[in-house]
């Protein structure tokens, strides 16, 4: 992936990415904020796509464009390795931008609000179809889970091999453990075809 060779060794910082997905309000940004060494940053992407939505396209009559904000955070693993966490836009009408956001991700976390299980279907289906390793993290919010891990697994039809865990997105260590679980799982399933994600 090195595109030119003008750097010295000291310059050889590398980065990696974990995607944080889930329904609107499930706790994605809270998770990112708990583990990130910087406050979650928002950047704007102007996306061009064959979207059916009703965003203003008068400025570019031949294209459908929309501006979406996405949050990300950062963890410096060591001097040469930075890990970024990117939250997917929660509204499903921004689906089409997931490919760009997810490209090159080591894996994904699907954050689930047990009271709104149906909002997680999109994300689970997406990662299943793309064969991107993901774990399901049930956000405890105030300490209560409306359903057990097994019930959620059944409701969302999560394969047995995929870890489903509960956590508190507000808690740094708890959220960090979710990332650890995700990375362990991604590495274990790392034997998959390298060409599946493009």
């Amino acid at each position, binding site marked *: 992936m090195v595109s030119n060779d*003008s750097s010295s060794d000291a310059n050889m*910082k590398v980065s*990696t*990415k974990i995607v944080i997905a889930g329904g609107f309000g499930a706790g994605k940004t809270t998770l990112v904020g708990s583990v990130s060494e910087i406050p979650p940053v928002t950047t*704007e992407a*102007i996306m061009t796509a064959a979207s059916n939505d009703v965003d203003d396209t008068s400025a570019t009559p031949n294209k459908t464009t929309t501006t979406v904000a996405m949050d990300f955070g950062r*963890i410096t693993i060591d001097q040469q390795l930075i890990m970024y966490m990117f939250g997917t836009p929660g509204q499903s009408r921004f689906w089409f931008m997931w490919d760009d956001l997810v490209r*090159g991700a080591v894996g994904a976390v699907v954050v689930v609000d047990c009271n709104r299980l149906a909002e997680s279907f999109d994300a689970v289906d997406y990662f299943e179809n793309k064969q991107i390793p993901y774990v399901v993290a049930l956000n405890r919010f105030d300490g209560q889970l409306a359903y057990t891990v097994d019930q959620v697994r059944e409701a969302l039809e999560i394969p047995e091999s995929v870890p489903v865990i509960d956590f508190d997105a507000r808690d740094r260590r708890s959220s960090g453990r979710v990332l650890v679980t995700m990375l362990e799982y*991604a*590495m274990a399933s790392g034997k998959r075809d390298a060409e599946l994600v493009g």
Partner: protein
Amino acid sequence: MSYRRRRSTRIRPYTFTGGRTRSRHPLMVQTLVSVADPMASPPRNMMPESRDIYELCREARSVAEVSAELKIPLGVTQVLLSDLADQGIVFIHPTITGHSPSENQVLERALRGLERLFQ
């Protein structure tokens, strides 16, 4: 400097990218970029946006960070960075995706790092 903060830039960015919306380099949101020679002064005749990128990238930054910090939309940032890389001005760092067995060591390092941070 302040003109970029106006929200009227919906079309304009793509005029200075020559209408291109795809970059030729593997510039993902997490990809780190840095100027090839941090000690050099920026080349002359750079567009203001590219000059801002140049100054920011004296230290390695991700594409998303460049976009957020300079308030340049992501797609435009990617194209500008791609051009700077073509000219050998900006270096694009490797991105670890986990898709190659050769990356296992780095992922092990990431895992140990996370375990250390969140034990």
